[in-house]
């Protein structure tokens, strides 16, 4: 069932490609604006690159959170999910996986290309990509909680940012920190391990919390 729900969400995303592309282009444009605005000072660009890429990734994944449950809520599919004999947490995990595949993976693939604008070394690019690969699924999982809590509220989009962005801070610190540490010659292993730990913890806790929030929102 987990696979079915992921397949369904991917199929829906493929039928509505514009939604996927807006998130990706938002990311590309935000990241590209900084070198244009700050100027071609190489050393400065190198130091700010990880932070800029990570903040842009946070905002881009934020953009698409609203859609995670709202269309299912409007057309009644969410009711049927709550009444499914399958575990709701598992369904939520499937939806979060689909969300990551649609919004997270394109960012991960795009990041090394964008990193070249900031004159990052090959090592730094590799660490940046690895940190995004570990960190972006956490964004989808934590974001799902916020999306479930603000379901059906007016102005839910703003509220979801207020709820979720503070929770993203640890991911941001260790994600951007990994690249800085590797550039300083300290090695990124510690930062990446912590990101991995965040991922495991959120895989266990976030689907369950989201399922509880969905039941509360639907009552």
């Amino acid at each position, binding site marked *: 069932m987990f696979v079915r*729900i992921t397949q*369904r969400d991917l199929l829906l995303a493929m039928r509505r490609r514009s939604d996927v592309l807006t998130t990706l282009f938002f990311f590309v444009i935000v990241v590209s604006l900084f070198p244009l605005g700050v100027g071609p000072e190489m050393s400065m660009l190198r130091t700010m690159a990880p932070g800029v890429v990570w903040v842009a990734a946070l905002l881009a994944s934020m953009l698409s959170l609203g859609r995670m449950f709202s269309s299912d809520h409007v*057309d*009644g599919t969410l*009711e049927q999910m709550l009444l499914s004999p399958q575990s709701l947490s598992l369904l939520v995990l499937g939806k979060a996986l689909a969300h990551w595949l649609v919004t997270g993976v394109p960012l991960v693939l795009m990041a090394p290309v964008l990193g070249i604008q900031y004159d990052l070394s090959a090592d730094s690019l590799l660490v940046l990509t690895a940190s995004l690969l570990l960190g972006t699924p956490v964004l989808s999982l934590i974001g799902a909680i916020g999306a479930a809590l603000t379901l059906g509220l007016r102005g839910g989009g703003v509220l979801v940012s207020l709820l979720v962005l503070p929770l993203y801070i640890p991911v941001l610190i260790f994600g951007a920190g990994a690249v800085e540490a590797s550039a300083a010659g300290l090695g990124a292993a510690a930062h990446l391990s912590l990101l991995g730990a965040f991922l495991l913890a959120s895989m266990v806790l976030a689907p369950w919390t989201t399922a509880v929030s969905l039941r509360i929102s639907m009552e």
Partner: protein
Amino acid sequence: MQVGGPNGSGKTSLLRMLCGLAAPAHGEIRWGGSEIRSLGGAYFSDMTYLGHLSGVKDDLTALENLRISSALAGTEVDAGKAQDALQLMGLGGRELLPAKVLSQGQRRRVNLARLLVCDTVLWILDEPLTALDAAAVKLMQGVMERHLVKGGMIVMTTHQEIEIAAATIQRLQLS
């Protein structure tokens, strides 16, 4: 069991409580002697709820909609069987159209086709006959009668006059 009553008398609220989407303020709802909240998934696999909202996705075809909603409800349906159900509901030849081009009544038929492929005992139906034409109402009447003959149970609300032949019919009038 047929639940009647004027608009706003709480028919939908009652049905939502019966299927476990809402919690009653007092009392408890039991299925086979146990409280439905404690049964969880076991109750949901005995029960099919069709509400006001169709749960039909605009971007998916009728066939995909039926197969995915059945899978969600715990019964995997193969393409052939789903096709037969849609055919029976009068949607033959339209299985591969995206649901957004279907009319209100046709979308309702896609939704109701789930009843043909599910094997649950209890059906909770909220206004299942709205937007259907006379032929489809007759068809649904037959489907429901067969379900009752097999020993199934139906709780439904409707404003339409419909005579379903059954061994025991209860009418609950809310006011």
